[in-house]
């Protein structure tokens, strides 16, 4: 659901760019101050892993594909603050190097997937007191659905189409890809936890 350039009108993308910059700045400083240094190797490998996983598009119904976004996966492993930073880095590389997602739309994509997607993905896990299977699945579904909802609001503000079909089709498709996000995230978290329990975020020291 990376929004390309041209879909959003200038007042919409400029406002979201202006909001995203201080938001990401806050998460960077917060991570630098509190992230457990002994877990620093996770930052590179989890960013690389989620970037790669996002490349694997799988069919969702007829003529449509979906791919992992990974907001909940990053939140469960890195913790939500660092997850926001790493997801932002992924979106920047995708936009600037691979021209996947717009450059002017970067603020929108960061707020949708790196901020809302990560934090909504983390919420059920926080409420459950740990990465229980049901909470991870719910978080992953929610992260995709809410990111799609925000993208739809931004597209609606840019008047790309009439609201009824726009909301119905965007939310319908992403409610389905969210199920795949949930299944993949649960499997990935379990595999990673088996590999090393230290790869799972257990709260800040």
């Amino acid at each position: 659901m990376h929004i390309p350039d041209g879909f959003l009108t200038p007042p919409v993308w400029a406002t979201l760019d202006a909001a995203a910059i201080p938001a990401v700045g806050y998460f960077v400083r917060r991570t630098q101050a509190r992230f457990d240094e002994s877990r620093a190797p996770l930052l590179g490998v989890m960013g690389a892993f989620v970037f790669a996983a996002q490349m694997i598009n799988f069919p969702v119904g007829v003529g449509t594909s979906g791919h992992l976004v990974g907001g909940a996966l990053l939140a469960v492993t890195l913790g939500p603050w660092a997850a926001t930073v790493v997801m932002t880095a992924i979106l920047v590389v995708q936009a600037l190097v691979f021209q996947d997602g717009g450059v002017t739309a970067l603020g929108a994509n960061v707020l949708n997937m790196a901020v809302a997607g990560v934090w909504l993905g983390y919420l059920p896990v926080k409420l459950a007191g740990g990465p229980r299977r049901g909470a991870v699945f719910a978080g992953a579904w929610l992260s995709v659905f809410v990111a799609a909802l925000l993208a739809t609001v931004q597209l609606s503000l840019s008047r790309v189409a009439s609201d009824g079909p726009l909301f119905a089709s965007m939310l319908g498709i992403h409610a389905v890809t969210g199920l795949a996000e949930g299944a993949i995230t649960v499997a990935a978290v379990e595999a990673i936890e088996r590999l090393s329990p230290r790869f799972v975020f257990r709260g800040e020291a």
Partner: protein
Amino acid sequence: MKRAAWVVGGVAAALAGIAGWIASTAPDGLERVAETLGFASRGTAPAARSPFADYPAGTGLVGVALLYGFGVLFGRTLKRKK
């Protein structure tokens, strides 16, 4: 943890390496909606086309390396705790 990092990094490289061959090329959810509702044409091409645009086969490894590099450099900026 070191072994786990190697495994996760290795899987990332493998996924990026094979993505060009196994990934579905069908439009994703937003692209599909844009086509169906007729606003796909609003998308504007970038001023200059990157040689990596649309992930030509194998180039995902470049992205994996960039994200790994970002993580290593950002990790060095973490404040030392006691």
